Each structure stands twice: as structure tokens, then as C-alpha cells.
């Protein structure tokens, strides 16, 4: 990690600091900021905005933010310095991305992952159907480039980023700013974990084949097929995560209470 952090893209920055929906608020803040740190969106040593500004931007009470910062401090993801030049600073974690994402995955109940998959699939399906109706040949240059880069990417994190870009480009081809923003919001919420879905070679190959079939359906103007393929693609990725989540919880339980 470098001491100076790269500036976030505007979309990513807005997403990181945008208002949180009604969830257990402390958990939501911990997850949002923790993810950004785990993924390197907030770089080592970067100062977070002040408490009042940050709580206003996240749409939570200052006390909620403080509780979340306590948790993040316990997780070793931020450090707080008092006095002049003080504030809350990012501390980049030292364990591997896969470990961190695996730990992060354990914080999601499988029911929540299943429900998220349903919601995301609904968005992705409707978006793909509209894209099939509205995309012109040029609109598909970008997702075609992304799927090629995805197919060639070796690094799971890069695969996750390129899969995300591919879906944002499909949403943009649907000509909907709202659907595109929603797609970006989903990716901010759960997208990082999809690195875990694409780290096995066969899952990577399968996702690549799904991308190609989806673009072909959009290109041929077959909205129904595009919708079905987009929904299946989301469920495919999330099913991989749920399987890993179930393995993880089993391991955790068996470590905590070995069978006698």
C-alpha cells in the first residue's frame, strides 16, 4: 500500500459516501467504509472526512458513526489521532484480499445474499431487456471490450472490477441513468465479494460464456433472452458466494465446537 491514496472515481466516491438505507445502521456504516478500505478504494493513511461531515453524507446520526468507527478501530482498519492534525485515518490491512473478503462474506447471512441476488437479478434482467431494445452497435463496443479483458484477466480482483464494468456498460446501453446508478450501487454493496465468485477457473470460464451470450442476445435485439441470461448470470455469481458462505460457516462452527 502506498502512503498517498489514489483519488476515487466520482461514481465510486459518491457511492461510498452516499446515504445509507434503513439497515442496522452501525453495521451498514462498518461494512461500507470497511469495504472501501479492504478493496483499496480508500488508501492507507488517507484521512476520512470529519465526523459531522461524514455522518451527514452517510445519512446517519453522529453517535452511529462514532460506534461504527469504534468497530472499524477494533478491526484495525482505521486509527484515530487526537489533537492538531488529528482525525481518523485509514490503516490498510495486511492479510490477503481473499482472506479479507472471506471474512467479509461471513458477515452476510445466506438469507440476505439470496434476497440480494433476487433484487439484483430483477435490476439486471430489466436493464438487459431495455439494452436489447435501445442499444446501437457502438453501445456494445464497450461491454465487448470488457468481456474480452475479463476473459484474459488472471487476478480475481481485476476480474471482479471488469465484471462490474461490463454490467455498468450494459446498463448504460439501456440509456438509463437511474438503472446505471442502481447497478453501481449494487456493485458498491456486494460487488467486491464477486472476486470470490470468479477466482476458480471453471467459474471464470462459465462467467465469460455468460457474458458473451448476454451481449449476443442484446445485439440481436432479443430482449426476453437478454433478460433471462442477465438474471441467470446474477444468480450464478451469487450462488457461488452462498456456497462459499455455507462452507465458511461450517468451518467456523467446526473450529469453535469440534465434533466429539
Amino acid at each position, binding site marked *: 500500500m502506498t502512503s498517498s491514496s489514489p483519488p476515487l*472515481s466520482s461514481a465510486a466516491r459518491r457511492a461510498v459516501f452516499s446515504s445509507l438505507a434503513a439497515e442496522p445502521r452501525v453495521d451498514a456504516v462498518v461494512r461500507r467504509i470497511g469495504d472501501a478500505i479492504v478493496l483499496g478504494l480508500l488508501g492507507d493513511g488517507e484521512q476520512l472526512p470529519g465526523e459531522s461531515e461524514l455522518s451527514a453524507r452517510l445519512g446517519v446520526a453522529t453517535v452511529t458513526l462514532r460506534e461504527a468507527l469504534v468497530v472499524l478501530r477494533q478491526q484495525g482498519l482505521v486509527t484515530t489521532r487526537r489533537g492538531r492534525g488529528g482525525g481518523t485515518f485509514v490503516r490498510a490491512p495486511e492479510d490477503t484480499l481473499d482472506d479479507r473478503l472471506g471474512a467479509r462474506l461471513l458477515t452476510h447471512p445466506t438469507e440476505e445474499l439470496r434476497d440480494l441476488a433476487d433484487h439484483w437479478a430483477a435490476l439486471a434482467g430489466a436493464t438487459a431487456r431495455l439494452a436489447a431494445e*435501445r442499444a446501437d452497435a457502438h453501445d456494445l463496443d*464497450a461491454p465487448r471490450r470488457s468481456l474480452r479483458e475479463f476473459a484474459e484477466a488472471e487476478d480475481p480482483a481485476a476480474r471482479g472490477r471488469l465484471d462490474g464494468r461490463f454490467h455498468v456498460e450494459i446498463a*448504460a446501453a439501456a440509456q438509463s*441513468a437511474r438503472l*446505471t446508478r442502481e447497478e453501481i450501487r449494487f456493485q458498491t454493496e456486494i460487488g467486491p465479494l464477486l472476486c470470490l465468485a470468479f477466482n476458480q477457473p471453471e467459474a471464470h470460464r462459465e462467467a465469460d460464456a455468460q457474458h458473451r451470450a448476454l451481449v449476443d442476445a442484446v445485439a440481436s435485439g432479443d430482449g426476453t433472452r437478454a433478460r433471462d441470461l442477465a438474471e441467470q448470470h446474477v444468480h450464478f455469481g451469487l450462488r457461488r458466494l452462498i456456497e462459499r458462505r455455507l462452507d465458511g460457516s461450517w468451518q467456523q462452527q467446526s473450529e469453535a465446537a469440534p465434533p466429539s
Partner: protein
Amino acid sequence: MAAAVGGGTTVVGATGHQALEVAEAIGGLLETVFAAVERARAAVTALLGSGPAPATTDLTRLRRGFQKELGGLVVGLGFVAAPGLLTDVPAWLEWWQLRPDGGVQPLLLDLDPATSAYSDYTHWDWYALPRSSGRREISGPYVDYLCTDEYSLTLAAPVHSPDGTFAGVSAADVYLRHFEAVAVPALRALGRPAFLVNPRGRVVASTTAARLAGDLVRNLDGLDVHACGEIPLRLVTLPG
């Protein structure tokens, strides 16, 4: 999927004259945006001609001029450097945006390919079209998920170094809803359904719910079509 849009007949009658006037007025609106793009282009060209290869700090001299162009239809304006042009960074956008509260802010993108999937901007139409044609170009309407997350038009012109090599583009962003707010009243004055369409056949603004911004119109056969001056949009009217 749309092929290039052909067809359409230019009719000049009593209503044809009125449509032509509206088309040229709408073209004139976008010419004012292109005038800002041209002033930005001239400023960058002068900077490139004034000394050795520039660094990002040299571009700060452009800021006041860029900021002054913001307002009216222009919500973002700047210079997008060709990768490799600047001595201190691989890629750069010297880009300024109007905030909703009227203030101005720089656009700060993550251009590091190690952390961002969006670091390469050279494939976007607003960059690639002026680079390949050597002329000013309008891109969009398109969802600008790089800079604003809004449905937008971008007007851009190529910038060249003193030796004639392509150095990047100067450009301005227009939110489609802002453009619609000025174009639709003009179209309404025609008294019959009308819409504007870009060269790829995508509707830009419309007075009929049957053809909305973002829709593709595959065939203009049998419809009245008017050029918007030198602006590559066309005004299409439907029988009232």
C-alpha cells in the same frame, strides 16, 4: 440494433420554413456550447505552443478560463489529455464541473489501472470521435457513468500540438434534461409532433411520447427532416 439512419425528405413549404427556423435555432444553441469548447481548445493550443512538454501543474493556468465557461447549458468543461502528453502523469483530465449549489469543482478520477477499471478514457466517443475525424463532434445522448452519472451530451473538439500530433480533446458536458428544457419549447411551437435525432438515429429531445429521448428511430422514410445548421442533429416532424 440500428444501422445508419437514412431516408427522410426535406420539405420546404409554409410549415417547412417554420421547422427550418426552429432547427437552426436549436443548432444555434449548441453552437454557443461549441464556442466555449473552441475557446478552451484555443487556450490549450496556446499553452502547448508556449514551451516544452507540459506537466499537470502547467495546466493550472487554464483553470480560471475553464471555470468561467461553466453556466447556461455547460455543466462541465475542460481538456482531456492524450495519454503520454504530460510529463508527470500517464493520463489526465483537467476538468471542471458546476455543482448543484452553483460552485465549481474539479473532477478527480482514479486513473490508476491497478485500482480502477475505468482508467482508460480513450474509448469514449467524446475522445475517440474527434481523434479519428479531426473535427468537432457531438456524442450522446449517453449515460455518463465516468463523470456525472447523468444522461448527457458531450461536445468535443480535437486539440493538436504545434507539430500537428493529436494532443487530446477540449470538451463540454450538457445534461440532456437541461437541453430538453430549452429545445422542447422550441419544438412545441411547431404545433405538430417533432423530435431531434442524432446521426446514429437516437432521439435527443421530443414532443411526442411515441419517440422519447434515448429511443432509436430506425427509419425516417416519409418524414420531414431538417438540418440544424452545421450541428449534426436533425429535426424530424411527424404529420400533425
